[in-house]
């Protein structure tokens, strides 16, 4: 179909993508420029690259493989508390890393609940540190995200298709082949690329649970090059390796993510006649129960640990809450300003560099990005004065890949289904965007906004490079509390952060889904 017949245009999206690319590549360029050129990394760096890729591959594969049955179960079951559970699924992903790691250790650690149970049964303890510990933590972080992305895919199969399948008396196996597999072929590669990218830039998880320098990731090598060796050239080179790895994975994923959308439905609630058998019910119940246990118990541990600290939180923590909420709100505005035009541009089926620019936020080392921005901005203004806007901007760029993954497939569906009618009615870009695209994307927008907001709330990222003590975000404040022996207050603040991130996510996500039903 001719491009001019679509009521969406790519212009603003190209500008937004260009801006993102300019910021990220400009920052890396600044690091190279300051270093006076790149330096080739040594054998230890290449060992780090190998370990990074290995753990990311295993983590992403496992996250996805486990997410599919959970998402399928959630897609075809209605039960009390389902909405809450779907929202809760967002939570681990939103936790600051050290909080989540401590939560996991309360369950799987040496003195954790699992080992206490094993000990009571006279069984030897399990050791969590090592590659499997890294993978465990990454699955904990990313299983929920993968589940939500795939669940989104299921939701995009119109109710009419399942009705048709029921009418044809298709069993679960046929439904898998005819409806679910094509959907997964479309959604899964993108989800895999996102999770793979997240695991690639992992730092504290791999270091804390890896059990030693065997588990050195590229991000740690970058950190070392910046902070200890002040070898900017090597840091920048490694940051480029990291970008190349993520974008390479993304390119492969996007090429694999073939297949068509499902066409328009009439927004009927989905009934699943095919799944009413007892074996399937039990299977789904087990999948949901196991995933819930795996995700919720460590969070409950965070809550149990944090509750005593909540009562005596110092005033600075509350100030940090206000700062964090301000940063997250600003970040959301920037995210919307970047994501919406890019979604419109990508919704016509266009791909290529806009997509890649959108992924840069996932691929770039936060430390390299922050340092590059510092080099660029330092001559212009007081870094402390820019701490909060820069943090908000960087958070938006980091959240952009997730927002695009969530919004673009749905937006493509909207344009495919309604673009012709919009064009026929001479709606023009603005009205089509306002009257059709945005309302049709309400659930995805809510999800993306909630994720962006929560990511920003939980991000330690670049604020540490810019901030001084008067402009601390909540995660930074938690680290400061820990650094001052105040572990109890830190646990309390961590619980508060979990509640905030979760609350912000719930409000946005819920609003989006409520609008979709209305």
């Amino acid at each position: 179909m001719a491009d001019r017949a679509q009521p969406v245009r790519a212009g603003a999206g190209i500008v937004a993508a260009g801006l993102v690319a300019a910021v990220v590549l400009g920052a890396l360029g600044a690091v190279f420029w300051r270093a006076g050129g790149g330096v080739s990394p040594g054998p230890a760096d290449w060992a780090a690259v190998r370990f990074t890729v290995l753990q990311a591959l295993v983590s992403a594969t496992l996250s996805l493989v486990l997410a599919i049955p959970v998402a399928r179960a959630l897609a075809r079951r209605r039960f009390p508390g389902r909405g809450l559970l779907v929202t809760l699924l967002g939570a681990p992903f939103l936790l600051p890393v050290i909080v989540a790691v401590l939560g996991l250790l309360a369950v799987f650690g040496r003195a954790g609940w699992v080992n206490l149970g094993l000990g009571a049964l006279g069984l030897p303890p399990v050791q969590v540190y090592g590659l499997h510990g890294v993978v465990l933590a990454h699955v904990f972080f990313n299983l929920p995200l993968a589940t939500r992305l795939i669940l989104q895919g299921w939701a995009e199969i119109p109710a009419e298709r399942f009705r048709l399948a029921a009418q044809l008396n298709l069993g679960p196996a046929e439904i898998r082949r005819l409806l679910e597999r094509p959907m997964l072929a479309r959604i899964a590669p993108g989800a895999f690329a996102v999770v793979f990218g997240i695991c690639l830039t992992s730092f504290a998880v791999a270091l804390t649970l890896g059990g030693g320098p065997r588990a050195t990731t590229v991000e740690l090598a970058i950190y070392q090059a910046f902070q200890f060796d002040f070898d900017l050239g090597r840091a920048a080179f490694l940051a480029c390796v990291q970008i190349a790895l993520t974008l390479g994975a993304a390119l492969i994923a996007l090429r694999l993510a073939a297949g068509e959308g499902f066409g328009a439905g009439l927004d009927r609630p989905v009934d699943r006649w095919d799944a009413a058998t007892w074996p399937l019910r039990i299977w789904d119940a087990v999948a949901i129960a196991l995933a819930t246990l795996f995700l919720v118990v460590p969070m409950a541990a965070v809550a149990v640990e944090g509750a005593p600290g909540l009562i005596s939180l110092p005033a600075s923590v509350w100030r940090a809450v206000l700062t964090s909420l301000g940063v997250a709100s600003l970040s959301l505005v920037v995210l919307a300003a970047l994501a919406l035009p890019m979604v419109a541009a990508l919704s016509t089926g266009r791909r290529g560099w806009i997509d890649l620019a959108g992924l840069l936020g996932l691929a770039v080392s936060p430390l390299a990005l922050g340092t590059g921005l510092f080099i660029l901005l330092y001559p212009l203004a007081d870094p402390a004065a820019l701490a909060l806007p820069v943090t908000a901007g960087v958070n938006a760029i980091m959240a952009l890949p997730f927002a695009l993954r969530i919004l673009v497939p749905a937006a493509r569906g909207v344009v495919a289904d309604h673009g012709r009618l919009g064009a026929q009615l001479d709606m023009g870009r603005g009205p089509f965007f306002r009257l059709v695209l945005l309302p049709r994307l309400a659930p995805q927008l809510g999800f993306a906004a909630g994720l962006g907001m929560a990511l920003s709330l939980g991000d330690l990222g670049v604020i540490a490079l810019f901030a001084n003590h008067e402009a601390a975000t909540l995660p930074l404040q938690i680290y400061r509390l820990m650094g001052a022996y105040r572990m109890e207050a830190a646990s309390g603040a961590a619980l508060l952060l979990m509640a905030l991130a979760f609350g912000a996510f719930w409000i946005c996500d819920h609003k989006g889904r409520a609008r979709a039903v209305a």
Partner: protein
Amino acid sequence: MTCRFRSSHLTLAAGCLIGTAAVADTPTLTVYTYDSFVTEWGPGPVIEEEFEKTCGCDLNLVGVGDGAALLARVRLEGERSDADVVLGLDSNLVAAARDTGLFARHGVTADYDLPLTWDDPDFVPYDWGYFAFVHDKDLDAPASLQALADSDLSIVIQDPRSSTPGLGLLMWVKDAYGDDAPAIWEGLADNIVTVTKGWSEAYGLFLEGEADMVLSYTTSPAYHVIAEDDDNKTTAEFDEGHYLQVEVAGKLAASDQPELADQFLDFMVSDAFQSAIPTTNWMYPAVTPEGGLPDGFDGLMVPGKALLIAPDDVPALREDALNEWLTALSR
């Protein structure tokens, strides 16, 4: 008062503007330090108040990550840096800091209470501590690094590539064992539960019960005694001696307030500053204050022998030691 960007609070911003006008003639001394120094529990607030009483200036303490990040930040900013003084470098970073050529000589003389002689032309010490492994009192602790390596106790340490205590342990083993350091690391490999990014993570894991011992300082139990009324934590004394961490400050050559910077370094070794250190930074003050050390400090283990590699020898040793460490622990 200091005026910084805030995302909200218009009234505060307005007050800030008025404040700026009022203090426009007051010179500002900018001191870069690590994050935990400037928090409300750190020495920052007391020191700011005390120094401003006498200097007729505005002391602007800027917290910048940890010790390593602090040096990286100063290097990034170079001669354009707003900082007049950098406070919080560790003895192992001194040579790297000196190599930048950004620091100026100081004229401070003081009667330091350090276990070893400190005589550095560029950097003034303000506190120090012995690295040590912290454990619960009921643990049957080993009496040396070698005994620890031979035991099946579990420990958490920090990564020498990302944290100053981690680097301190690396130097400790190197100083105590020289060419035999790799053997010690190989012996320790099965004791090390995990290696963390920084001190906070390691100490947090220890408190969660993930390991029998954690690399920290001999002064750490003082925090638990004084702030938490918990005397169940102690440190193991090792025969080889304990490596020192000396925390220092230096004046930047490009400072536009050189006199104030000198004044601050003098203030740093005075009683007003030093008496704040024990219960805010949880380290030994470089010059013991007139009132002595607070109560919780008297029960601390005092090592029989202090170790420290001369700062200027650190860079040459570091790379080899790091490779030995990587090799031993990657097996």
